[in-house]
């Protein structure tokens, strides 16, 4: 009997767990393509209220609003880019997980490249300097070398 009540209690617990309670939005679409676009969008759009969660991931009120707006726009037949542009116009580039190349972000792309180039330049210069000093002997050294070589011949 005890076991039964316990398992019943456990079962009851699962009903009240946050996972069950978290809102599951139901969105209906005309076509599978639209549904796919919607799902892709909710994954690449970032919730401005939360730190590092996509709008599909977040339960924040704002994320819900943005999901609804995305749904509305997709239903109207807007393309992916149009929806992203709509959000960026309102919330700035923060809503994009894939930042565009702007003067402020260009360093993210060029930085590593410049770093590698700079490294090669330094290496190249060093190698050049080294070979120079190794090859050239001054007059005294030249004489000494000849002397040594002569001695070796004997």
């Amino acid at each position, binding site marked *: 009997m005890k076991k039964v009540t316990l398992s019943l209690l456990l079962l009851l617990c699962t009903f009240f767990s946050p996972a069950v309670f978290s809102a599951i939005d139901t969105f209906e679409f005309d076509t599978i393509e639209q549904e796919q676009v919607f799902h892709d969008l909710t994954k690449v759009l970032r919730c401005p209220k939360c*730190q590092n969660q996509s709008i599909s991931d977040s339960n924040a009120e704002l994320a819900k609003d943005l999901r609804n707006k995305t749904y509305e726009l997709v239903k109207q037949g807007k393309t992916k880019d149009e929806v992203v542009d709509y959000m960026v116009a*309102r919330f*700035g580039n923060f809503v994009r997980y894939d930042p565009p190349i702007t003067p402020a972000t260009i360093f993210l792309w060029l930085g590593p490249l410049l770093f590698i180039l700079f490294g090669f330049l330094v290496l190249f210069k060093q190698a050049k300097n080294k070979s120079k000093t190794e090859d050239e002997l001054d007059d005294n050294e030249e004489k000494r070398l000849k002397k040594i070589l002569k001695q070796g011949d004997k």
Partner: protein
Amino acid sequence: MANTRKMLTLSVPLLLFFVVCIFLFKGLYSDPRKLDSALIGKAVPEFILQDIYDENKQHDASIFKGKKMLLNVWATWCPTCYAEHKFLNKLAAQDIYIVGMNYKDDRKKAIRWLTDLKDPYKISLFDKDGMLGMDLGVYGAPETYFIDSKGIIQYRHVGDLNARLWNEELKALFNGMQ
């Protein structure tokens, strides 16, 4: 000559180190929750919203033209708005023109709030569905927009307004607006 050149080359990593230090140090004190508005330098978006007190009265974007003002986004479900409200009353007493936008809220509760705590707003918009909020890029309450006399958004402050912030930086910003 060769020596100074060598010194210069060797000091490059040190300089880089300092630049990175300054960059990271600044990051230490910046609040990642505060975002710049995407609407800076742009006009307030078009809208038609009801007045909070009167369902039959409607307002549109033309109310933001003619003088510089603040647009305060608030809601009764927002505790920070409660903390901020007293200071808004003070600003209103200093003849600063404030438009209020009640964001995703209940009309009755909002009216009760304004009667109990005093109403600092010259005009109160009722944005029940967050339509204007969406167009403004509101991502939380309270938010305050600084709007110049041409109806252009010059600045957005996220979080509460208080005497310290106002006196230290925001007052100068407001007075500097056309």
